[in-house]
């Protein structure tokens, strides 16, 4: 079992009301594999997935980084109780484990877990939908993202910022319709640098897996960034990123 670097599809459990591993899940795990050496050198203590669905991603992360003996523990949440159950089955089938909680994003964890998560992975509901579909029960909660697919993403980002440790990394799945460059801009204001780890176009969507990390040198600049010149400065600081986005699209 240890020879497999990621979760095996034949061992992933399923349920009618749970999102099955799909292109976005594979792209996120590919991003983790592409960053595997960095992840191992990062020596995370606590890793977390928000919206664990089938458990494919958190299982893969646990297979990449190892379990308690390696000093790593995992926490995974989902608002859908069926998904948490399926994640439990998937992890068990692979001989790995995580602490699982049925909750909305990270409700209940935000006080005590603040500043403790070293690696966070999120494949959010990013599909643009009518706003009233967001947070529906069952499988709809796994994809319904509201306007521009951003409703849930925009709730997750401040939570991620709160939970991540000083050395914390976030891997986030986004769709072009989510306006990823704007997401990077929002995170830049919170002091995070970002890069695209995996970009993938399928027939239906163009996916980007973005990695965020705290850019401690530039954080100080941002705090002082109240003047009009400062605002221009922060816009200018985003230009390389924006031009990168243009060249990628």
């Amino acid at each position: 079992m240890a020879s497999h670097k990621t979760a095996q599809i034949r061992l992933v459990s399923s349920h009618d009301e749970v999102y099955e591993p799909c292109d976005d899940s594979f792209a996120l795990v590919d991003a983790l594999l592409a960053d595997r050496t960095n992840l191992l050198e990062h020596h995370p203590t606590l890793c977390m997935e928000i919206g664990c669905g089938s458990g494919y991603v958190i299982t893969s992360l646990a297979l990449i980084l190892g379990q308690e003996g390696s000093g790593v523990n995992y926490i995974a949440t989902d608002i859908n109780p069926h998904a948490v159950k399926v994640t439990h089955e998937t992890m068990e089938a692979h001989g790995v484990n995580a602490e699982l909680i049925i909750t909305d994003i990270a409700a209940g964890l935000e006080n005590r877990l603040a500043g403790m998560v070293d690696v966070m992975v999120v494949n959010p509901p990013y599909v643009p939908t009518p706003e009233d579909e967001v947070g529906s029960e069952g499988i709809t909660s796994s994809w319904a993202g509201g306007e521009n697919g951003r409703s849930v993403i925009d709730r997750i980002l401040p939570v991620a910022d709160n939970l991540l440790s000083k050395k914390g990394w976030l891997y986030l799945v986004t769709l072009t319709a989510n306006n990823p460059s704007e997401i990077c801009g929002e995170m830049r204001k919170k002091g995070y640098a970002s890069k695209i780890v995996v970009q993938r176009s399928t027939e239906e969507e163009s996916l980007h897996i973005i990695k965020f990390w705290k850019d401690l040198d530039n954080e100080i600049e941002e705090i002082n960034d109240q003047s009009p010149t400062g605002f221009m400065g922060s816009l200018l600081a985003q230009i390389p990123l924006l031009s990168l986005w243009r060249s990628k699209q």
Partner: protein
Amino acid sequence: MRLLTHNMLSSNIKGVVNGFPLRIEAEKVLEKNVEMNSDFLKKMFEKIEWKAFVEASRGMGYTELPEEADSSMLDSDEFLNRFHHALLELHLEEGALVCPETGRRFPVRKGIPNMLLHEDEV
């Protein structure tokens, strides 16, 4: 659910000021051996709210933790073993987590706490 998780969870019902620690109602507790990693324990020790941890471990039927602890105790293998056991090897399989302020019970089924709130609690 391990006590590691219990130590990180609070009741977040609207209006609740002090939702930590949740009181444990244990119906079924499981023990699962896991490999010990002392670096992990040392890192977590700084983050653990010890009093809540001791109380929770008693709620799970484990009474071997000292009332008070400081970081010098991490040099003792005996202490590390007990800390490890209570933090990572005890699982609340069936039971509930009770909000200390409102008494609202969050059920734990098959080891998984359900922290979802009702509409009037958000």
